[in-house]
């Protein structure tokens, strides 16, 4: 029981790292980016390739799993995404679905359609018993890393100059520009960091979520649930939503496997009907 809770929390934390970039682009910048999972997949593949082909240790690949998607994200934002901020949601949806299709087919072409396996280092494998609970070492590792990330992100957003500039740019880009804030730069940086975090999440999650070319399609709905259910005005909303989603998913699969994803989708619909602004957001 407590083990399930623990696994659920680890899963939820992972989802949060994967989805928090989307929380900013979708929630704050109001851009419907269905291709977010593609960046996560990129991070996962960076780790898989570096480990399996070049024998790099797992930990050493993680920074690269952040940097590569971040640069890809930056390049795409500057060239393509930027032009679509002001366009209709339909255009954004079509554009990002197109990107997903391209990413799926391209990875399939380059890497093959099979599942990528990652050999975790020995000290992250296995379980230990803490206070009578079976605790997976790798999952504790994920919780630790993601926990630190959450705190750092929250601090950056609420305490730093960059954070307040970002919030200003999001609230009213025109006025922010008038005050001398370089909105384009802020958005580009945020997009890059969001993509990088997704990549990091993809690398960390390769072991738990699995990694194959259809990753962006499979988990797209999860990211979207996190963001829409969590609401988009704060970072704590998506965080709580990912924890709930993670725990509900793990517990659901354990106790009532036949209902599968059914519960989650239904819950999402119900929440969205009752609170279109998200569970933890105040209506604007």
């Amino acid at each position, binding site marked *: 029981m407590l083990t399930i809770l623990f696994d659920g929390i680890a899963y939820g934390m992972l989802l949060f790292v994967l989805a928090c970039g989307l929380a900013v682009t979708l929630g704050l910048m109001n851009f419907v980016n269905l291709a977010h999972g593609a960046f996560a997949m990129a991070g996962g593949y960076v780790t898989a390739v570096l480990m399996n082909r070049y024998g790099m240790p797992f930990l050493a690949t993680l920074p690269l799993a952040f940097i590569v998607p971040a640069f890809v994200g930056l390049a795409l934002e500057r060239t393509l995404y930027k032009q679509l901020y002001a366009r209709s949601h339909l255009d954004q949806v079509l554009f990002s679905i197109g990107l997903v299709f391209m990413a799926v087919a391209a990875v399939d072409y380059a890497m093959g359609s099979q599942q990528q396996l990652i050999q975790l280092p020995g000290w992250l494998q296995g379980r230990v018993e803490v206070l009578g609970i079976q605790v997976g070492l790798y999952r504790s590792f994920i919780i630790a890393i993601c926990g630190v990330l959450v705190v750092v992100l929250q601090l950056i957003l609420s305490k730093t100059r960059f954070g307040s500039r970002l919030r200003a740019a999001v609230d009213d880009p025109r006025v922010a520009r008038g005050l001398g804030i370089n909105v384009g730069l802020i958005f580009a940086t945020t997009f890059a960091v969001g993509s990088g975090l997704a990549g990091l999440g993809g690398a960390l999650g390769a072991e738990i979520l699995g990694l194959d070319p259809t990753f962006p399609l499979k988990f797209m709905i999860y990211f979207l649930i996190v963001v*829409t259910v969590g609401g988009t005005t704060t970072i704590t909303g998506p965080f709580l939503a990912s924890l709930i989603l993670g725990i509900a998913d793990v517990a659901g699969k354990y106790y009532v496997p036949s209902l599968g994803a*059914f519960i989650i989708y*239904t819950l999402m619909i119900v929440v969205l009907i009752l609170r279109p602004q998200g569970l933890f957001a105040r209506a604007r």
Partner: protein
Amino acid sequence: MPADPIAKTAVPPSTADFVRRSLVRKGRWGVAEIGFWAVAAATLFLLPERHLILNEIAIIGLFALSLDLILGYAGIVSLGHAAFFGFGAYMAGILAKHGFADPLLGLVVSALAAALLGFVTSFLVLRGTDLTKLMVTLGVALVLGEIANQASWVTGGADGLQGISMGPVLGLFEFDIFGTTAYAYSLTVTFLLFIVARRIVVSPFGLSLRSIRDNPLRARAVGIPVNRRLVAVYTLAAAYAGVAGALLAQTTQFVSLDVLAFHRSADIMLVLVIGGAGYLYGGLLGAIGFKVLQDILSAWTPQYWQFWIGLILVVLVLVGRERLTDKAKALRPRSRGRLAGQAKVLPTTTAGEV
């Protein structure tokens, strides 16, 4: 005293008149339209070896037409339209499997069932922003997909629904392996439903839908019952999609989970975008374009054709998808010139943020 040029014509006893006349004019069949359907009918005899793919085109065209009704005319962004398509397909398949082999009966039942589903779920898309609608429609399709996957004693689960055998259409025409009957059947159904849709969009009801799409707040202020109209058109579109799904199930005699998959909703959006949303031929032309494109691409790169489909989507959006349809409209200068003179009487507003 300088006279306001608008003031002279401002007493418009003609407004209602004008609208009525313009609707009637739009309701007339043009030469190009008649030509389009004549060519479609001619393919029945001229392209006998292509009937299988033509059948698919007719079905996809009907499905895209259904999406056009809600997306192009009413402005509801849906990412889960396959829900109704798949529901209709399973309905028809299950009916046929249990001995009700008459195709037309299957169509009617599927249409009614999908309409019921559409009516119930339409209340979910009335609220919230575009994003909420997107998520809710997507969620409905996913839930249905899960149900179809789990309820394998009815639907066959991941193996698909097998053992469907259809009776002859109208008791006269048996389905053959070349797809000739299937194509004739799908084309006829699509054509009949197209006529109905055409009648609807040139009615005052259709006009009110477009005004809701352009500016819901204003439409409400003018006295259009926005929610009721949206529920009605969503239900209608669901029925259309259900019929399209039923056609697919009956003519291929097989239903798999694929009919409810996400990529089907995404594909149909692409179809509509290729053809252009907001006019009825968009879906049909898009279906032709999409299927031909898919045929060429998958013959060229069988495994990776999705890449090129994705690229086309991206390029289409970046270039501006309205531009394509605008060009198509510019080809018909007649209607444009006639409207231009009277357009000043009826000032239009651009869609505002609400």
